């Protein structure tokens, strides 16, 4: 079930248990996000994308593509955005994580991994808007641009890109400390 790579990142070879874990964690993240009613800092925290990124870190490239394709199709089916935007976004993130993992390893301190996740989450919110516009243009359903609103969304995406990973990995560090 576990693969080891050269730079010591522990990757999982997903069997039924791992896919079940992925499935359940994504459902939990989705329910939490969809029922979040507080508009603190403009947008709700991107829990679904963050959960997918956490799993991406522990899967190899092929399984990342499979997970990205499945999650992308589900999100594109539910949301009124150009179809293919989330699939494209997850594929790009899968490739970016592959590059990032070539540079850093599990042996790095937790701070480096936290910052890597901040970067990945920030990239997901930054890439989402261009992905919508590009796919919308290709599908002849253009998504309208509103400079001020998109800038505000971008900044709130940056906010959650910092808060979510710091909160999550901080909790892991505390758990390890008091275990």
């Amino acid at each position, binding site marked *: 079930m576990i693969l080891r790579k050269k730079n010591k990142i522990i990757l999982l070879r997903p069997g039924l248990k791992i896919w079940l874990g992925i499935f359940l964690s994504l459902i939990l993240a989705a329910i939490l996000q*969809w*029922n979040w009613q507080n508009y603190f800092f403009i*947008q709700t925290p991107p829990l679904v994308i963050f959960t997918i990124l956490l799993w991406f870190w522990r899967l190899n490239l092929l399984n990342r593509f499979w997970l990205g394709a499945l999650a992308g199709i589900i999100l594109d*089916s539910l949301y009124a955005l150009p179809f293919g935007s989330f699939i494209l976004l997850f594929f790009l993130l899968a490739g970016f994580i592959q590059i990032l993992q070539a540079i850093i390893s599990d042996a790095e301190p937790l701070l480096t991994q936290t910052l890597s996740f901040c970067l990945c989450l920030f990239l997901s919110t930054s890439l989402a808007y261009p992905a919508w516009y590009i796919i919308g243009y290709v599908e002849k359903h253009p998504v309208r641009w509103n400079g001020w609103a998109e800038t505000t969304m971008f900044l709130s995406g940056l906010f959650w890109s910092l808060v979510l990973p710091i909160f999550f990995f901080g909790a892991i560090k505390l758990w390890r400390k008091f275990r």
Partner: protein
Amino acid sequence: MQNRKLAFRTGAGILAVAAVIFLNQTGKLSAVKNIFIKGLSPLTNFSSDLRFFLYTRQTSAWRQTQEAKVLRLELENIKEENDKLRQVINFKEKNNIEFKGAGVKFYGQELGREFLLLDRGRNEGIKEDDLVTDENFILVGIVKETGSDFSKVEISSNPGQNFEIKVAGKDLKALAEGLGARTFNLKLVPRDADLKQGDLISLFNSGSKSILLAEVVNIKVGGGKAFLDVKAVGLGKPELLKNVFIISWPAK
């Protein structure tokens, strides 16, 4: 060797995405979308039930507030046009506008945008760009995509949404631009406009039955500018809706 594998897989991934986009344009993915939407029904139903359970008290308080605001708007329209309150059927006949009911299957939000999924689609005559309102005729959103028996709605306050609006009780027309988080920016409001906090914004006016959009919350007079900087908050609460009205414009 590794790099070649990676390049091959990346290329295959890009081709797969391109194929998905192409298939979507040809309409062949509708069946796949239908399967996913029906398959996810237990999850979306559970999410809706949980939300209604968590926010029951808020729902009833909000409904009372909304009804009071709608009554105020109707009163102002009656005063302005010296007309009687119309029934729903009179509204339809006068304007040759059809409207249908639909159930809300799913409410979701991602990266600052909110969406609804309805249980009626093309088979019931719903088209893209139809307006979606709640039972008090408060605008919720616009239909963006239709399937055979589902419709996807983009909430009116999402970034990129624009509406021509009128301020209730005043001869003032402007443009409302969605900013996200249920907020609108009103553009082209003259500097000398008689506008105050609490004024109601409606989408269009047809006698006493207007489609309400938002309420003015902030007015700033910018230094040297010809227009006011006005912010309004949307009155719709799409996350608490179980049923909506869809208003179709007649085909041109």
